[in-house]
């Protein structure tokens, strides 16, 4: 049942990101998407850092907070420097509501069930963001510095995905 719930939320998160690839986005929208995507994972990470029972999951959650906060700071600094005002859009909003639902779902779980649900979601989330980076965000970015930043942070998402898969394996 919990698996099914997790699957539901993961699927719910995938929809907006999948829809993203069909749409062209401008730099202001990319900025909003990047900031929101990071913020969503920071919120989930904070919850895991305090509520996870497995020390590995706790540490992973903490690292997600640190890493995504760092990326967000750099993204915000760049956007400010470029004079771009992040433009809210359907994708950013869906990411936001998907993140809120994930946090709500996780808040109802405890112990090993929480750990599994959080890690499963992290895997799906990072995979989806990677797909979005490759199919939409990086190809659509107009400003060279914005594009460079996306390219620079992409490997971190790969590492997070690998890391989450390792943690998932160790939980079984």
């Amino acid at each position: 049942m919990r698996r099914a719930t997790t699957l539901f939320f993961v699927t719910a998160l995938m929809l907006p990101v999948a829809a993203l690839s069909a749409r062209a986005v401008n730099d202001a929208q990319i900025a909003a998407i990047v900031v929101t995507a990071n913020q969503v994972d920071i919120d989930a990470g904070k919850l895991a850092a305090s509520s996870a029972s497995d020390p590995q999951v706790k540490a992973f959650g903490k690292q997600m907070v640190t890493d995504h906060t760092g990326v967000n700071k750099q993204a915000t600094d760049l956007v400010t420097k470029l004079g771009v005002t992040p433009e809210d859009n359907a994708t950013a909003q869906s990411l936001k509501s998907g993140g809120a639902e994930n946090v709500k779902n996780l808040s109802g779980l405890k112990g090993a069930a929480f750990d599994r649900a959080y890690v499963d979601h992290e895997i799906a989330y990072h995979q989806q963001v990677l797909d979005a980076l490759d199919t939409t965000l990086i190809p659509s970015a107009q400003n060279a510095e914005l594009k460079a930043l996306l390219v620079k942070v992409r490997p971190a998402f790969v590492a997070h995905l690998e890391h989450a898969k390792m943690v998932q394996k160790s939980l079984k």
Partner: protein
Amino acid sequence: MPAGRAMFIVLAVLALVAVLAALAVLRTGLAADRTPGRVETLVARNLVRFSIPAGEASRRNPLTGADAWQQGTDLFRNHCALCHGTDGRGATAIGPRMYPPVPDLASPEIQHFSDGALFAVVSHGVSWTGMPAFGRSLGESDRWKLVAFIRRTPSLTAADLAPRGGPNASTRIVMDGTSFHPAETTVESGAPVLWANLDPFPHNVTSESGNFHSGDLAPDGTWVFRPTERGTFEYHCTLHPGMKAVLRVR
């Protein structure tokens, strides 16, 4: 052993030492241009050893890292080499002309001292010799670095003692885009290697075999390491699986 008897033995030993010292002075005067005899050297060495309280002599060097002695190299050159020589062997212009002569720190007699005893000697000096006390001029961690260096003196090589440049002179490896650049680096043994984290989140440098570990480096953080063990070392960032590189030490 009753306290009274122990006290008697200590007093007797001290009296004997005083008599021997007085005899030595009567025979030779206070001149320094001679070589101390075997008995005098033996008595003096043991006096130094036994004068160090057991609590101090049993202290362990808290710097357990394999590279602790390297950090002592520059300190030794600046504070000790005038008398002891950069290699600690005491073959300086001053060393052999002192009374007692400056000892060879690599010799078994000195290496026989415990870490804590060496630390006590560096800190408090040795009276009636030229050895000054560094307890007030050098911090505790610097004195332990010197102890680590003294421990290393028997196996020092010329390359170990070569003057080192600042961080600018070192081989530089950057951590950027969650990878090490370059992914393969070759350095001479003892040469400094600098890692710089250019990513907006922490990374670390951890060798697979456990020889070196930087601890987490914050954004813009750097770490300098001077590898001394020769060989090929794979290392990675424990926070980001897949972030791997190789360091070859010739």
